[in-house]
């Protein structure tokens, strides 16, 4: 099985914490959609397995018009066998999802919404530069459910400027009231060069202390687990049977094709990423130019191993000693066993079942340090 990722690099505004490549101007959108559909047809053979998931990510896919969405789906249908398609996710900002738009979405293969709610506190939303209100989020979720969306994920952020544990709890409670199936709970990360970074260094915003951040993280894990959500990846929680199939592809080595500017693909052997400039991407694809619109790297054994560790250690599935022994040469498995032994002794990993190792609670908070010890 495999996945298809469609990148929509447009936003109506730039959020203060964002370091993604996205554009707030939409002049080039028409030629971008043209290039995107062309790339879909050019690369229909990139994956040799049928599609199980499609994912519209961004940027903000809900900046697309109904017509643009139709153009993209037509291209997909023309080039891919969708008979085994199980999950089609569409990322959206609440303020874009009016009834008409939702009615349209439900008429397409889209069966999962991922909503950029971020917080149910209007002050937070204002600080972050979001254009929706808490009320709007709630309404949109209800409307979507009314017309038949039964698989909804929301994004929530903790560690927001001036966020207290109480406020974070209130956000989580609110989410539980909404009968949603999935939550991506992210710690706000301050990326270099973002507006957020500047505001913090100018002391115009204060982010919670390390202790508070850990309290919020741990509270989310405990609270959501006690409400029936499994903590299946560092920042992801799902009701039973509602894990994101598409995102799980990234974490279990399933091939995926990414189309659009800056989209990444993986076919089991190489990783490939498209150029990030929207204009260059569009002009190369639309002009039949021989110029490459992507870069790629063939993964070495070490690369595969390091990715397995880095990604696997973040998941509930953990790291599998047998998998390592089967798939990697002895130098890797020996080193793996030695380090795992040491991590076990230090109570940083635990055996969740025969030959499967997962992070202990205290290690989840420092998972990069653990990955650093394990990688080659």
């Amino acid at each position, binding site marked *: 099985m495999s996945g298809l*990722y469609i990148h929509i690099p447009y936003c109506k505004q730039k959020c203060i914490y964002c370091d993604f490549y996205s554009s707030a101007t939409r002049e080039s959108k028409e030629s971008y959609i043209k290039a995107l559909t062309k790339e879909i047809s050019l690369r229909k053979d990139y994956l040799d397995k049928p599609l199980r998931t499609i994912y519209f990510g961004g940027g903000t896919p809900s900046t697309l018009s109904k017509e643009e969405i139709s153009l993209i789906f037509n291209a997909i249908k023309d080039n891919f066998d969708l008979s085994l398609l199980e999950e089609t996710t569409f990322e959206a900002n609440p303020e874009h999802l009016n009834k008409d738009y939702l009615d349209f979405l439900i008429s397409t293969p889209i069966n999962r919404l991922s909503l950029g709610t971020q917080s149910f506190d209007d002050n937070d939303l204002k600080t972050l530069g979001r254009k929706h209100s808490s009320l709007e989020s709630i309404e949109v979720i209800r409307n979507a459910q009314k017309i038949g969306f039964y698989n909804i994920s929301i994004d929530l952020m903790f560690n927001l400027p001036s966020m207290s544990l109480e406020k974070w709890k209130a956000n989580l409670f609110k989410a539980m009231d909404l009968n949603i199936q999935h939550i991506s709970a*992210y*710690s*706000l*990360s301050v990326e270099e060069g973002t507006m957020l970074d500047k505001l913090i260094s100018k002391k115009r915003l204060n982010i919670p202390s*390390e*202790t508070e*951040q*850990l309290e919020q*993280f741990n509270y989310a894990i405990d609270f959501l687990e006690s409400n029936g959500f499994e903590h299946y990846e*560092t*920042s992801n929680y799902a009701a039973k049977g509602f894990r994101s199939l598409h*995102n799980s*592809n*990234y*974490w279990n080595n399933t091939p*995926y094709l*990414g189309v659009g500017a*800056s*989209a*990444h693909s*993986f076919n089991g052997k190489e*990783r490939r*990423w498209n150029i990030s400039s929207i204009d260059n991407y569009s002009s190369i694809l639309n002009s039949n130019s021989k110029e490459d619109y992507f870069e790629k*790297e063939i993964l070495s054994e070490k*690369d595969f191993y*390091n*990715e397995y560790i*880095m*990604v696997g250690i*973040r998941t509930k599935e953990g790291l599998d000693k047998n998998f390592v022994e089967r798939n990697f040469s002895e130098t890797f498995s020996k080193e793996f066993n030695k380090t795992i032994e040491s991590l076990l002794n*230090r109570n940083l990993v635990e055996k969740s079942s025969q030959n499967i190792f997962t992070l202990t609670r205290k290690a*989840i*908070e*420092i*998972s*990069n*340090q653990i*990955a*650093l010890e394990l*990688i*080659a």
Partner: protein
Amino acid sequence: MKNIRNFCIIAHIDHGKSTLADRLLEFTKTISSRDMSAQVLDDMDLEKERGITIKSHAIQMEYLYKGEKFILNLIDTPGHVDFSYEVSRSIAACEGALLIVDATQGIQAQTISNLYQALDHDLEIIPILNKMDLQNAMPEEVSDQIIELIGCSQEDIIPASGKTGLGVEAILEAIIERIEAPKGDVNAPLQALIFDSVFNNFRGIISYFRIINGTLKKGDRIKFVNTGKDYNADEVGVLKLKPEPRPILSAGDVGYLITGIKTAKEVNVGDTITLLDNPCEKAIAGFEAVKPMVFAGIYPVDADDYEELRFSIEKLQLNDASLTFEPESSLALGFGFRCGFLGLLHMEIIQERLTREFNIDVITTVPNVNYKVHTNKGEILDVYNPSGLPEPNYIDFIEEPYIVASIITKAEYIGSILTLCIEKRGILKNQTYLTCDRAEIVFEMPLGEIVFDFYDKLKSISKGYASFDYHPLDFKPSKLVRLEILLNGDPVDALSALTHTDNAYPLGRKMCEKLKELIPRQQFDIAIQAAIGSKIIARETVKAVRKDVTAKCYGGDISRKRKLLEKQKEGKKRMRQVGNVEVPQSAFLAVLKLD
């Protein structure tokens, strides 16, 4: 012999010695301007870049003056205090010296000390005011300084500019008219002074010499008086732009000698060359065995490079006999070498040459001087390394080397310089005004105090204007302690330092603070402590990492995050393990530069 003139140049760094020398070479057609890469005399890249002369050089010019052909031998001298012995030998090989002073800056400490050496050897001094083309030249004021210093008359001073070529002809005329021709007895037994040597990959060591008496022919059996070793003079010749072989050289000549010697150790600057069969009665006075003054451990960054490092240091020693080394090992840094240097600049040069010419990254430990430890049993131990210090109960007392330091500065900086020197345990010996706003301050100071961060501080408080020179004085008793740094209780030998009791507290505190900045957080708290014996005198803590988790890791993040992690892993691999603490290399280097 009457048509030979041997002279050297005395100048401070940046006063334009090399450029002016190049003008002399051009004017006498020794080189054409086409062949000239700026500053011919400095052949090491390092010398060109730093604008200083590390090795002595010599070059022969021919000049037709009033219808007569003259041979002018210029012996260039190193321009840094670390190399003052070499300077003294170059001076001993000459009858005259050009005293080059930058007309925009005036006399500097280095100039004065070298000038005194030249006067001691009765050299004829030709004062030259250089950089006269510059707007901010102060010819009257600087001339006054020169007149005051050497007691010449205003007319003796030649205005010049290496840049425009002003004064070049007048300088050549002065060399011929004012400097005496060499005296010496061609028929006496050979007596030649070695003033430098260089290593050549194909020919071995090439010695540069000046014949005082007698003659030297190709094929002669010769002997070096101080080492007692004898050789065959395979080739002798004079130093033009390229060496030119000659069948015979005699008293007054400056030239080179090739004997097939492979190591620089056998050729000591200041040694006397004579004939094996007909030796001279005594060696030329002034010979000193070169003694390293500053010691530091040099370790390969990558432990696998140890043999490579040994090979490289051996190679460097071939052309730099003043570098000494012996194997040493450190718990923190593994296997390396304890090296002896003439001074701090020499140490930096060696370090840089290892990196540049041999492509080896090294870690250098805190430098120290050599101490004489008097034990209770009456023995005297030479200690070159903090770890070599015996336990306190075996020590009767310790002596450390002192120097006489001379600093020349603008009057406005005197106050802060005095403060600095006193901080560095200096004892003010003399203070004289050279002119109304330039003073020379003379201090006696422990050498150990200047090997650390004295230069940088002096430069910064005087805005770069103060100049500094020193000479070894003697050993004096001192209250020294070994300052140790502990990480989570484990001593880090590579960070320990011998220091005066009074400095131990501030130094310990600063080292702990600096290390706190440089040691990355790990999964547990790291205690950084400074200790004297069992007494802890300073402490800092690097707090444990409590949160290090990436929020998002999706399809587009994997490659980038893997590479980031791999880069971190590489850094981790290069760190040195002390107990359970990982210490980055930068920590070992940065303690050399504390504020």
